[in-house]
């Protein structure tokens, strides 16, 4: 278990009488690109929300890099290296791309509290921001406000912000939704590169099966708060239960 980055023990969460996570147990290994899939309402988003601190679980523990973070606030988790991107592009609308990326960069470099130095003049920050903007292919639009971006570009920016926080473990919630093929290729290439470097361990929640199966080393299938499939893409593809929930149960 040394290689385990994040461990989830007996995690449960219910909203009223709707159970969205029921005694979940799994661990995520460092460097293993994992996908979480499942039909609508399977509890994928809730799971990410719980793991990243957005929603407190009813019971269970979350261990990140050997540290119990179940009760840690969001910003602490982020600083420990646990970050996420959002399903709907969740960017700073009126701010320029540079500023969008600069916010997490400043947080990482612990410069966010400084109130008299100019952000624009900080060479280190500039370099880091430019590097990330370049990586997601938006460097040329550095001064454009995020709200003026196309949908796909905004998703790229979204992932860029998440990356800028220098996470060890990064949850990407539908990173390619609404992207055109070029953008999609770029983002996938990025994920592959970073994953191969071992800098970031990715966990992806996706509906696009092409993405899931071309990227992942491991796939976890959730259904109604339970894990109903877990393994390599091939294993999951062959799992009859998984096929069942995806195409609908036999109803005749």
């Amino acid at each position, binding site marked *: 278990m040394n290689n385990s980055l994040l461990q989830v023990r007996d995690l449960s969460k219910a909203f009223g009488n709707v159970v969205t996570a029921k005694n979940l147990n799994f661990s995520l290994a460092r460097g293993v690109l994992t996908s979480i899939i499942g039909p609508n*309402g399977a509890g994928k988003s809730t799971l990410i929300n719980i793991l990243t601190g957005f929603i407190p679980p009813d019971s269970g523990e979350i261990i990140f890099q050997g540290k119990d973070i179940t009760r840690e606030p969001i910003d602490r988790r982020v600083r420990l290296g646990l970050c996420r991107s959002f399903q709907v592009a969740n960017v700073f609308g009126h701010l320029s791309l540079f500023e969008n990326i600069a916010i997490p960069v400043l947080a990482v470099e612990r410069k966010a509290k400084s109130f008299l130095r100019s952000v624009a003049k900080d060479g280190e920050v500039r370099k880091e921001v430019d590097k990330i903007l370049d990586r997601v292919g938006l460097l040329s639009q550095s001064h454009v406000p995020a709200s003026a971006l196309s*949908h796909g570009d905004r998703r790229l920016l979204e992932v860029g912000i998440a990356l800028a926080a220098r996470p060890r473990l990064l949850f990407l919630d539908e990173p390619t939704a609404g992207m055109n093929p070029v953008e999609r290729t770029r983002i996938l290439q990025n994920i592959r590169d970073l994953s191969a470097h071992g800098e970031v361990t990715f966990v992806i929640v996706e509906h*696009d099966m092409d993405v899931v199966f071309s990227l992942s080393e491991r796939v976890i299938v959730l259904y109604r708060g339970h894990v109903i499939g877990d393994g390599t893409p091939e294993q999951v593809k062959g799992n009859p239960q998984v096929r069942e929930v995806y195409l*609908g149960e036999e109803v005749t």
Partner: protein
Amino acid sequence: MLEVEKINTYYDTSHVLQNVSLKVAAGQSVALLGRNGAGKTTTLRSIMGLTPAKTGSINFEGKQIRGMQPYEIAKSGVSYMPDDLRVFVDLTCEENLEIARRVCKRSGHWTREKVEELFPVLADRRKQKGLSFSGGEKKMLSLGRALMMNPSLVLLDEPSEGLAPLVVRKLIETIGEIRRRGLTLLLADQNLKFCRQVCEYGYILEKGTVVHEGSMEAIWANDEVVKRYLAV
């Protein structure tokens, strides 16, 4: 009955629907298929006028309804069951049903008694507020509310989602019952098998455009399409 032609819909600047066209004939039941985020919900919302389409035309019973207010569209005979159901939590079950009939002022087959006949559980919970309903009950209530408007076209978003197999089977029967009353259906669902049971024709959406259309049987038989756009 319903002719959607090349509509384009945006959320802010993101171009969600791109030249979506589809047709629903009177009495027909049509499925919108596709994975999450493909644009199914947006298509239904555009027809309902909730997220108005910027360009294109939506023709309903010979009338252009694109650009009309949602309440006008509702009064002209389109009703809508959203995927998140959205029953009025502050109203009792009975009020939820009756309000639709009263506001819409369309007469027809559906009365509260008929709806309660269709979903007996609603009769049991007549005086309870919508807040206390379980997911399945809310679904029936939301569907019942849509019927109470006595529409000629019903838009159903994810009717089978989150329902146990037994309930899905019941739902198929119910939809059959509804259709016998002469209603036209346009439903968006991910569950191919379910759609096959209740619809004749299907459109597959992917990234905001229609990528495939055909009779449900043809879609069902087309393994490649299913694999590519719908399955794991």
